[in-house]
């Protein structure tokens, strides 16, 4: 072994360290694009089991649905959907029978053959099979049966009319079509070796870093603009933000905290922000079975005490004002444009104090509640707590971890409950999930998201909802939803607080290929590429 002089060794080490130190942080490869999302580790890439936002992003790129909205939008009406794996579709006049005609010669990744109606029937068959565990099962509860009519045609029969079927069940995460052959062959391993028809195919997963995808050149819309896509899982907002500012990643998921966008702009003024409108819908449930919220005047006082415009303004362009449960951007919604003055509840702290006094609480009232430590929950509820304090509500609020919050709230242990939900423009969804008596929270935890007990403590809404569900015409159905919203504004079991955009900060050197206006909290990156 050759001898190395001490001086030579030290010189070599110093040189290596100096070379490392002098090296600037390597920018992302110009052809590869990367996105860092707020998550710790991949959980599954089986689209029927994903609940994690970062996994949803990966699945959106790997799989295709039968129909899609225009890129960067939600399809606000049934006729706004565009063909995807289905070239065309039609429904019966009662909106209970839907037939989809599939595109021909659509290959699955990795040589698993071409898409057939059998793959579609298999995908949706699992979603309605009570013995199969999938996420979002409730979205498919209205499907009575699905069958492959012939290799290119799939038929769905619904239990009740649904003119919004494409939005309520087809264009959903679990509605992504999987290869039956691959799924049956791989079993549990499909979760991290998925096979779809999407523009990107799965390359590898690193449980400590993320999911790596590569282009699928045979995609039926042509190869994606970028040959590789890295979906990185970086939970910490600071770490994610610094990775973006240094140019290490092209896009990052934003934090849903007031001031986050401004802080990014200060460091990197040319940052592009892609934001969905409306984003999440944040509602405040008042438990009607508990004092003081069994009193309508108290609930009215809460409504007048909360300055919804101020809540939305705190988030800058991310925040949006909401009047009912359905966001103003969606059909079926109500707003100051179509509500009578007595149901608009403008911010009026004096009136709130007066109502509180009339309710028998001239010196204010105290109650306790808890909320989640998740950044959006805790920030919004702290603002609500402060606004309520100004009119005499003394809210003893605990901030606890998210899983505990849901568990305790789902066991009917909470009094004032904020809920953050994301909905497609299917007006019945928030109403059924948050108002129906079937969704009332139960002490054993088997109930749904109706934390106010509306429909049971104050009956009547179920009849209104039943009328909505029987209506096959979309425009009439939307009008009936508005009627439900008006009734809710009279009874006030739930208050719409604000909508909050889902935001991705994007390095302007990457072009998305379209403008993000609305949609789910994930979007296709098929056309994303480094700008010329």
């Amino acid at each position, binding site marked *: 072994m050759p001898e190395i002089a001490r001086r030579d060794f030290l010189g070599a080490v110093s040189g290596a360290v100096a070379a490392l130190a002098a090296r600037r*942080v390597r920018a992302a490869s110009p052809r590869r694009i990367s996105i860092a999302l707020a998550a710790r*580790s991949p959980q599954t890439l089986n689209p029927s089991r994903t609940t994690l936002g970062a996994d949803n992003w990966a699945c959106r790129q790997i799989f295709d649905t039968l129909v899609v909205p225009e890129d960067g939008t939600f399809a606000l009406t049934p006729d706004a959907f565009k063909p995807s794996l289905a070239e065309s579709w039609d429904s019966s006049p009662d909106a209970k029978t839907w037939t989809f005609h599939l595109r021909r010669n659509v290959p699955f990744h990795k040589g698993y053959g071409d898409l057939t109606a059998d793959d579609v029937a298999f995908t949706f068959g699992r979603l309605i099979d009570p013995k199969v565990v999938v996420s979002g099962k409730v979205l498919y509860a209205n499907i009575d049966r699905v069958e492959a009519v012939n290799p290119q045609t799939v038929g769905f029969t619904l239990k009740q009319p649904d003119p919004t079927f494409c939005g309520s069940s087809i264009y959903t995460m679990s509605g992504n079509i999987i290869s039956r052959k691959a799924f049956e062959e791989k079993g549990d391993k499909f979760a991290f070796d998925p096979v779809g028809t999407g523009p990107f195919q799965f390359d590898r997963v690193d449980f400590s870093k993320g999911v790596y995808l590569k282009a699928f050149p045979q995609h039926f819309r042509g190869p994606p603009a970028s040959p590789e896509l890295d979906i990185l899982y970086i939970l910490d907002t*600071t770490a994610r933000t610094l990775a973006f500012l240094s140019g290490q990643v092209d896009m990052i998921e934003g934090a849903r905290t007031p001031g986050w966008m401004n802080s990014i702009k200060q460091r990197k003024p040319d940052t592009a922000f892609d934001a969905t409108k409306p984003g999440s819908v944040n509602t405040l449930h008042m438990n009607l079975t508990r004092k003081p919220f069994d009193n309508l005047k108290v609930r009215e006082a809460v409504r007048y005490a909360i300055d919804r415009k101020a809540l939305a303004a705190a988030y800058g362009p991310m925040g949006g004002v909401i009047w009912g449960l359905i966001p103003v951007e969606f059909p079926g919604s109500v707003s100051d444009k179509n509500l009578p003055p007595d149901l608009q509840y403008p911010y009026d702290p004096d009136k709130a104090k007066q109502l509180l006094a009339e309710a028998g609480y001239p010196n204010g009232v105290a109650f306790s509640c808890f909320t989640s430590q998740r950044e959006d929950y805790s920030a919004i509820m702290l603002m609500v707590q402060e606004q309520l304090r100004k009119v005499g509500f003394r809210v003893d609020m605990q901030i606890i971890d998210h899983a505990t919050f849901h568990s305790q709230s789902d066991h009917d242990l909470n009094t004032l409950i904020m809920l953050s939900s994301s909905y497609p423009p299917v007006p019945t969804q928030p109403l059924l999930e948050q108002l129906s008596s079937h969704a009332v929270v139960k002490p054993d935890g088997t109930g749904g998201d109706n934390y106010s007990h509306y429909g049971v403590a104050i009956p009547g809404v179920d009849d209104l909802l039943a009328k909505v569900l029987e209506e096959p015409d979309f425009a009439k159905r939307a009008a009936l939803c508005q009627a439900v919203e008006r009734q809710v504004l009279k009874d006030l079991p739930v208050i719409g607080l604000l909508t909050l955009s889902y935001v991705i900060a994007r390095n302007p050197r990457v072009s998305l290929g379209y403008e993000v206006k609305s949609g789910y909290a994930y979007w296709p990156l098929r056309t994303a590429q480094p700008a010329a």
Partner: protein
Amino acid sequence: MWKYIGLRIVDAVPTVILVLSLVFVALRLLPGDPAQVVLGDNATAAQLELFRKQMGLDAPLWHQYLSFMYNVATLRFGRSLVNGVPIIQLLAVNLPYTIQLTIAATFIGVALGIPLGVVSARHRGEPLDDVARIFALLGYAVPDFYLGAIFLIYLSLDLGLFPINGTGSGLIDQMHHLVLPALTLGLVKAAFLSRLTRASLLEVLSKDYVRTARAKGAREGRVIYRHALRNALLPVVTGLGLSILATLSGSVAIELVFGRPGIGNMLIGAVETRDYPVVQAGIIVFALFVVLVNLAVDLLAIAVDPRIRVR
């Protein structure tokens, strides 16, 4: 010696069983449902029940407990409830990063902290001592995640000297990624060790045998390094053991700030998602570390202080 090591490991078994039992019970008492986490907020009651049945979460608690202890005894950790990945695979991914970080931080802590403590003690009351004490005070006062963020902003983002986050690929790149997190934890550790060394050395320096050595005309360096330091190192070694254990379990903030994987990060995620098998496996790993580090400290103490003998 080997008999001693064996006995120490056997001694640790009841402690480990107790810890595992407490963790098992505590996790089940904690509100939150893994089925709800996995299936999402809008899962139906029937689906939640089906999931619990498939995962064995509907079995009586005593049955789950016995099954868990049997699996531990046979080294079968099972799969994560959340992503279905074998837990051995998750440990294999995360553990090396934790060990890597702990070793590097300990090396920096020892290399900086002990000499600083010696210098501080030797120059007691002098400006050098003041500087060392201020350093130690800052090390105690500044939270490690804050120090890490400061390093990231100035050394990585502004100067571009180090990568922002991740772990890198290849030996050199990995070392490059390791520098800042290790330096952050190492500086905190150095502050702790320097104070400990200083206090311990000052106590030893007032002993008769040190005075005797000086009276015999021994040079100050020989007095310090030959006679005093070895005797002063005993509490430092014990403190070092505690510090290593604190790094193993408490490096999660650093892992988050630097976007590094690791056992702490994995464990926190598993607690959040109520992924019982992963939490349990993580605790087993920590319990083993506690046993091993304590054993190493005892052996090191024997090496440092010949008066301690194995019985």
